[in-house]
């Protein structure tokens, strides 16, 4: 089975699981007492944000490995991961406000997850722009790797900054989804969703990676 086909199958599995998450979240998970039905978007947003974070960390790791071993495959993986991360971040940043406005009355909220995703979005966009501006593949791989490592190292500082900021400036009470304190059904839905998104990430990256390999060497399929 070629890599692309395998990637496609993994993606389909991920999408199926995602559909399952929707079903479970909407019909089979209890409504959270304090926040109501609006809270359920959390089951999609938190794992999506997690996938974006995963994408960035893997870009960073692949970048380190590329600089150490100069294997083009790591560069291709980093590029694929960055693209998928950008896509996930875009989806999160657009669905977040679209959901938020009718439900909470505000388009944007600087909560930890959205803020982190926004930062990751900027980092990913910068990464893509850099790649797009360098025609020569060796230089492109090397420079992207440097930027990728920097991006990954920045993430903990973003976390800390947001955390410190929020401890000093408690946000106005806005109804925004947060982790319910009760485990059980809710926790199960959440974990299920994490799984679905991780599989979706793997599927997309596999496909993108395979596409990249094919572009480089048209005779080599999978």
């Amino acid at each position, binding site marked *: 089975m070629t890599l692309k086909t395998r990637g496609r199958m993994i993606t389909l599995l991920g999408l199926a699981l995602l559909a399952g998450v929707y079903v479970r979240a909407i019909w089979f998970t209890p409504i959270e007492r304090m926040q109501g039905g609006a809270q359920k978007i959390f089951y999609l947003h938190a794992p999506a944000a997690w996938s974006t974070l995963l994408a960035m960390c893997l870009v960073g790791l692949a970048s380190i490995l590329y*600089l150490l071993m100069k294997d083009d495959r790591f560069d291709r993986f980093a590029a694929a991961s960055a693209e998928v991360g950008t896509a996930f971040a875009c989806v999160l940043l657009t669905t977040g406000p679209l959901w938020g406005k009718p439900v909470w009355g505000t388009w944007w909220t600087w909560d930890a997850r959205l803020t982190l995703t926004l*930062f990751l979005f*900027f*980092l990913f*966009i*910068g990464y893509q*722009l*850099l790649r797009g*501006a*360098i025609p020569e593949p*060796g*230089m492109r791989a*090397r*420079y992207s*790797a*440097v*930027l990728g*490592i*920097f*991006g990954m*190292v*920045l993430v903990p*500082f*973003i976390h*800390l*900054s947001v955390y*410190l*900021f929020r401890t*000093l400036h408690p946000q106005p009470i806005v109804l925004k989804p947060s982790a319910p304190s009760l485990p059980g059904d809710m926790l199960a839905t959440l974990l299920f969703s994490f799984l679905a998104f991780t599989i979706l990430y793997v599927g997309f990256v596999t496909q993108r990676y395979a596409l990249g390999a094919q572009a480089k060497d048209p005779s080599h399929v999978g």
Partner: protein
Amino acid sequence: MGEILRDAWVVARKDLALELRTKTGLVSAAVFTALVLTVFNFGRDPTAVAALDLAPSILWVTFTFAAVLSLNRAFQLELENQALEGLLVSPIDRRSLYLGKLFANLIFVGLVEAVGLPLFALFFNIPIINILLPLAGLIAVATVGFVAVGTLLSALVIRVRFAELMLPVLLLPFLIPPLIGAVQVTARLLSGRPLSEVSGWLRLLLAYDLVFVSLATMLFSATVDE
């Protein structure tokens, strides 16, 4: 280690000599800073918002812009007559090249900030004399963070298309965490609060500096060597 620092100083001294010879860079950056501060003044309604509330943000956004502008010239200097090639052929450690540029940039940006700070105090009537020492310390720590990442990224973009535009786009996400910290600490200082309240932020700023200077020093060779 001593050799590396000594070579770094040779590089830094050369950059500063070049800068002082023409002065265009310094004057432009200083004028830019003054203009940004002016824009901020006219961009707010003085009856609605007290200067003191906005002051930390104004100061640091101004410094951030000035830093980004200043960093562009760092490696542009080496493009004239291909001097960068000469630097890379010479036996100096690549880390010396990075550290030398870092020193020179710090002094350059420091000079611009030394002009900007009094102007800021003047335009917005902010009393800074009492807190001058801790404020100067804070500015130094935050600036190291800005310039450490900026120096490396400016080396990265000179070989890339649209360098002047790429640098801000790539650099700004990295400047936001130290920026947030600097604004918080400045706000505390201006309202006369003790520094112990913001020890978390100060630790964050110092950690940021340490981590990114080290990282940039390590990765600089990957940036300039082919």
